[in-house]
């Protein structure tokens, strides 16, 4: 451990500083967006027919009469104490709301990234191994199509086909209507909760419901993973150590998976971490289509009624998740690549 070294500690400290600056910028950004909005937050709170005194009172209570920089300091203090205010729509603290809906989205996104990574990595390897032959072209078109589809529309069409027409999968929501409320909530992750409660009927219903939105999200995120896998793989295939592996008598497949793939694994982990963040974007749209009671739906429904406390907190949280994922992918790189040790 001693050889962790000053240089590495320095690098980590530098990175920590960068993150702090980015985080600070994030806060400025959300603060500014929150203030320029034309909806009057006081009016939204007190209602249209409140008296002038009530209005003034709330106005001062919220600190809107103070200079901007003071308001910003208050905002910082609130954020530091995890006080994000109350949602106008639900009347509950925003953070509580978000923590309540977040597991649904994480469940969906995790399921989706499993599909997306499996699909993307195998398609990328397939394309690289068959460079400039027909599998490469097919993969290219398939992944670009995934990248090009408006996911909210594909979601609807998929519902029309697989749910309304064939009835192969569950429709909208996380499970069939009549199961709602039957599973004791422990983790918030329905698949885990229902499995723990031994409610296999509900578990099956949940899988049935998650499979379609997750597959679509996964497919759309696989485009990026495919492209990167292909290019990483092409870099490796021409390396001399691949020849060594072939000389040893390994088959083409063994060479690819044991040697070439081993060398891109680290890069892939970082790519998948970034793709996971990008999934959140698709989740906002797909949750609307599938009536998925998650973070995305919470964000959009609050957007439409101008509940800015809720919206800005959502944006802030997405930003923090993004920064964390970036950091995580960086860290994974350091941990898994022997050359950086």
């Amino acid at each position, binding site marked *: 451990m001693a050889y962790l070294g000053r240089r590495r500690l320095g690098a980590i400290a530098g990175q920590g500083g960068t993150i702090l600056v980015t985080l600070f910028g994030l806060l400025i950004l959300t603060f500014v967006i929150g203030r320029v909005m034309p909806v009057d937050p006081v009016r939204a709170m007190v209602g249209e027919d409140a008296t002038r005194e009530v209005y003034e009172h709330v106005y001062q209570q919220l600190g809107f009469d103070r200079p901007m920089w003071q308001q910003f300091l208050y905002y910082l203090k609130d954020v530091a104490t995890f006080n994000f205010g109350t949602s106008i729509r639900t009347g509950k603290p925003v953070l509580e709301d978000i923590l309540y809906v977040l597991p649904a989205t994480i469940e969906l996104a995790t399921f989706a990234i499993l599909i997306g990574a499996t699909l993307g990595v195998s398609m990328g390897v397939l394309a690289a191994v068959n460079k400039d032959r027909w599998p490469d072209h097919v993969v290219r078109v398939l992944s670009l199509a995934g990248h090009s589809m408006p996911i909210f529309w594909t979601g609807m069409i998929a519902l029309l086909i697989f749910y309304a027409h064939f009835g192969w999968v569950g429709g909208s929501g996380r499970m069939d209507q009549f199961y709602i409320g039957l599973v004791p909530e422990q983790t918030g992750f329905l698949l885990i909760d229902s499995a723990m409660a031994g409610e296999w009927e509900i578990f099956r219903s949940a899988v049935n419901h998650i499979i379609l939105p997750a597959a679509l999200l996964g497919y759309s995120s696989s485009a990026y993973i495919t492209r990167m896998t292909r290019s990483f793989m092409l870099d490796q295939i021409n*390396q*001399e*150590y691949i*020849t*060594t*592996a*072939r*000389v*040893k*008598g*390994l*088959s*083409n497949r063994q060479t690819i998976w*044991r*040697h070439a793939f*081993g*060398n891109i694994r*680290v890069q892939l982990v970082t790519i998948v971490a970034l793709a996971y963040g990008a999934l959140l974007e698709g989740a906002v749209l797909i949750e609307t289509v599938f009536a998925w009671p998650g973070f995305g739906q919470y964000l959009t429904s609050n957007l439409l009624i101008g509940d800015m406390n809720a919206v800005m907190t959502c944006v802030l949280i997405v930003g923090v998740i993004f920064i964390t994922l970036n950091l995580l992918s960086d860290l994974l790189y350091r941990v898994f*690549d*022997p*050359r950086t040790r």
Partner: protein
Amino acid sequence: MTDHPSDPILSVENLSIHYRGTPRPAVRNVSFTLGRERLGIVGESGSGKSTVGRALLRLLPTAEITADRMSFKGIDLLRASEKDMLHVRGAQMSMILQDPKFSLNPIQRCGDQITEAYLTHNKCPKREARARTLDMLEAVQIRDPERVYGLYPHEVSGGMGQRIMIAMMLLTNPSLVIADEPTSALDVTVRLQVLGILDALVRDKGIGLIMISHDLNLVRNFCDRVLIMYAGQVVESLKASELDNAQHPYSRGLLAAQPRIGGGRGTLPVLQRRPEWSEPVEASS
């Protein structure tokens, strides 16, 4: 000093190799036979010498290989299926590549890479393969095999890396080893040492060796016979001891361009390259 080359393990007749999408073949009408001896293939870069080595292992997916005959221990290398080749490569014929910096997998421990070569062709417990690897590391004169076993390629020196490579390729006791410029990436000081190790092992185990090199002196000292290649053709084939009697003008040019200790101090002659040497020549063995 070696077995008689009368019982050839490899015989090649009129081998031509054409990379797809290139105007002219990289190798034309190369013929030679090899017994349990050490054959040197010498030539300048681009003369097709490495291509020959890789073609023998069928490692050129983008090239058309044609030959009247290319047989190795009774196996027809031209017609062998890819599955058959998997039993040839590594087990009976292997190849030492040029630069251990690139030819070893950067994220696997050196020892595991050697062990993998053994396990690919021998069904045995991992422990046994590991023991054999350690023995082999000792045989290539690595002093602390246990430690080196667990090192990553970027943690070993070039000379050490090449010894690991030799260990990996000789562990399965192949009948033929192709050494493709095995020492040109190494420091001059460790070259002889590595070559010595390779030479000793090849002699001990009675392995046929094809040494591909651009270094005439090296080939002269470590090989029994020498093929001289120019522009994809063998221009001359002769015993290493008779190298000074080479007839072909290109071979003579190569020899004349070598500096010699105790030789004259005048300017060394510049190597001539005449277009007619690139014309197809009658196959001669």
